[in-house]
């Protein structure tokens, strides 16, 4: 067992992990941050996306020991300080960008990473960026629309309800 220390959603945390403990397992099982989901075994679905040192990564494809000393952000830390939904979360709700909610944490975390690097993405940039996030419910329409809206761009031309 190895001791790891990291900052998660602004809080210092530490724990004992095995070499094989994935970051996702550490988050879910040791820290009970179960908003990070596991939807596949091959690093494709993206339900587990978190930020490590500001970059989107698949927490199911990184060992907890490798995040030692890192700053980690998960879905649980995304809301505004007063608990209200942040701009991206609010846009997902406003534009119905989620249904069953299982892929949603990864989608929100990927969207946040995208908008940090590319504050005004085009529709095709959004679609390409989501290559590693699979959603089975929405057909992606409203996810893309929500991210465009969260970036402050006019989405009124995109078909709505």
């Amino acid at each position, binding site marked *: 067992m190895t001791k790891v220390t990291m900052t998660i959603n602004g809080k210092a945390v530490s724990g004992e992990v095995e070499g*094989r403990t994935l970051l996702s397992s550490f988050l*879910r*099982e040791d820290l009970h*941050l*179960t*908003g*990070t*989901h*596991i*939807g*596949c*075994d*091959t690093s*494709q*679905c993206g*339900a587990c996306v978190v930020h490590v040192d500001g970059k989107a990564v698949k927490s199911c494809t990184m060992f907890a020991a490798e995040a030692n000393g890192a700053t980690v952000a*998960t*879905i*649980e830390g*995304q*809301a505004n300080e007063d608990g209200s*939904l942040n701009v991206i*979360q609010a846009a*997902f*709700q*406003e534009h*119905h960008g*989620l*249904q*069953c*909610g*299982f*892929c*949603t*944490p990864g989608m*929100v975390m990927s969207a946040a990473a995208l908008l940090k690097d590319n504050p005004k993405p085009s*529709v*095709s940039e*959004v*679609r*390409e960026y*989501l*290559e590693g*996030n*699979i*959603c*089975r*419910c*929405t*057909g*992606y*329409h*409203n*996810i*893309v*629309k929500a991210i465009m809206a969260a970036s402050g761009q006019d989405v009124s031309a*995109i*078909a*709505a*309800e």
Partner: protein
Amino acid sequence: MPKDGGIGAPTRRREDVRFLTGTGQYCDDMNMFGQTAAVFARSTVANGVIKSIDTTAAAAMPGVLAIFTGEDFVDVGGNPAGWLINSRDGEPMKEPKRPVLAHGKVRHVGDAYAAVIAETVEQAKDAVEAIEVDIEELPAIVNMKDALSSTNYVHDEIGTNQCFDWGWIEDNRAATDAAIKGAHHVTTLELVNNRLVPNAMEPRCSMAQYNRANDEYTLHTTSQNPHLTRLLISAFVLGIPENKLTVIAPDVGGGFGSKIYHYGEEALVLAAAKKLGRPVKWTADRTEAFLTDAHGRDHVTKIELALDEEGNFLAFRTETLANVGAYLSNFATATPTFLHGTLMAGNYTVPNVYVNVKAVFTNTAPVDAYRGAGRPEATFSLERVIDKAAREIGMDPIALRRKNFIKPDQYPFASAAGLEYDSGNYDALMDQMEKVADVAGFEARRKESEKKGKLRGFGVNAYIEACGIAPSNLVGVLGSRVGLYDAATVRVNATGNLSVMVGAHSHGQGHETAFPQVVAEMLGIDPQSIDIVHGDTSKIPFGMGTYGSRSLAVCGSAVVRATEKIINKAKKIAAHMLEASDGDIELKDGVFSVAGTDKSVTFGEVALKAYIPHEFPLEDIEPGLEETAFYDPANFTYPSGAYCCEVEVDPDTGKVTVESMTAVDDFGNVINPMIVTGQVHGGLGQGIGQALLENTTYDENGQLLSASYMDYVMPRADDVPFYGVDHSKGTACTHNPLGVKGCGEAGAIGSPPTVVNAVIDALQSGGKNVTHIDMPMTPHRVWSAMQNV
């Protein structure tokens, strides 16, 4: 009127907040004190005789608490088929036992023959590897045609690989044959409706707990219908009394059909929890999901369409082989029959329809209902052969469909496939589709595509489906072994807020938002004061769950009926409070008043009075304000639609891109248009996936080659366009109180033939006389088709 968001309002979903903040509680997010882990030993061969299983070494490994094999379950029941189909000769279908764990034989890759319970998942996996199993591999039965002529059987005890040979409607057979024989033109098409893996993003998970003190079990499980799961476990599999078993389906990450069914893993964790006296949890990994979730579709069909000289449809005749996989899943026999054959008249006045379906056992995962369930298969066959016929007789595909549409003045319409359609207006849908999609501008867009070196195609489709599953009287006659009503309890609390317990289960459909809109509209109160309770058999009277686009049409109707009862009783209480007669009480905007006076009490005051019944006329009115209703529909509902899409084909690579997809649907009345639109989007994404991407592939040995996201092509954001969705032309359902029809499956039903028709059009426009390509139309397949003409 409700303050914000009654019927028809695009109310934002309240459940979103927990999902967006990571506080949803899916099954695998929960852990219990003393919890242990179950891992299954699964067959790596498709067909084999289990010669021996030696668990001695595995049992001695660190952390191992118990090991189960098929031997442990020989005395309990099998997981049953919920629908009895009789063959054309009157013989009942073959129903081989589906055990909790394989016993004697393994019948598909992934078939579980043992389970290890250990302190941790990794310890259990270590022990699974240490189980010494001797399986004598037999040739795999994969291809359906071969299976029917083989003497190598998936189930030796039934002596055939044919489950049934069903004719619908057998009495129409001769007339259909005659119509085809004498027709001016007959179009024939052989096609495959490709097998799909549902791929809800949340893998299945089941966690059982046993309370020795009162002999009670609790099962948390990823289910679309916890009551049905409880019923199956209690009545058929383990025999646990229903009143000793609570089944809870918490937040569930999508279902699409795959979580309707009871699976052996649920029974295993329950049995293990009792044996160990500790909670037992199993969570599937994605590979297990691919290997063991019930798959969808997998039909091989020959369809013929007979036409007269004017293009009037005279008959449809189909012969279908339907794969049911290695075991009968709970609705496997209903899907290719009564959810498919009954829709084979489509939206058309065709007088003759005959459908023959042979269901076939193979050494593959069980096949059952997947989003649309039988109706996509019907629509695909019809709309592909109609498109081919239009080309053959030189008629515009839209005009040919319009010529044969049932007209608005013909309802109720008795279809040649045995259903009575209650309402619809297919021409209006087609008009709207042509407008929304700017069909008139297509040729100009085709020229633009040509300039880029791309072949552009236009495809159209009209569909009808039978939803609101289902009228129990009717389905009982047709072989259903369950009733398909639903139930709701409306509980008005003393402080005036409401808990509404519903038998439907929401795993993405937004019931927690939409159902309160209905109740709020009826009571004239704030929907925020109404909470929906679902997914827990200990809290909800009963329910048949969510599938078949039934939640609103059936369970929503139960909610309406229960709310009507609440209003009736509340009026009595109000009448008492206002010293008036019941008949003079009016309810408006949440206030009960005496007609023609200024005397009134609010809904909240009535609620309080119901629970503090001082000076109450107890001989006339019981205290409390809680009502339950069971609703059994009078008929199916019949959503319909007109879809079109435009594709571009890269002639160099065969790659197809969907440039636009337009869905105009008749869902009857709409409660929350935002949610309805989202449901259509999801179905369209899955339909495009079926048409172009999703490639379930078993090799000749029964190995699933597409068993992970490395090979099974899930639609991604860059595979699909923005969709044009319109449901403004609805015609109300005539037989349920909300006039609703159901919207959950439409997109997945209407879109696959639309895409295929468009690709064929694109290739034809490029001078390639390709008449059909099987789905998924991968670049390789499209390119190959172009080479072969």
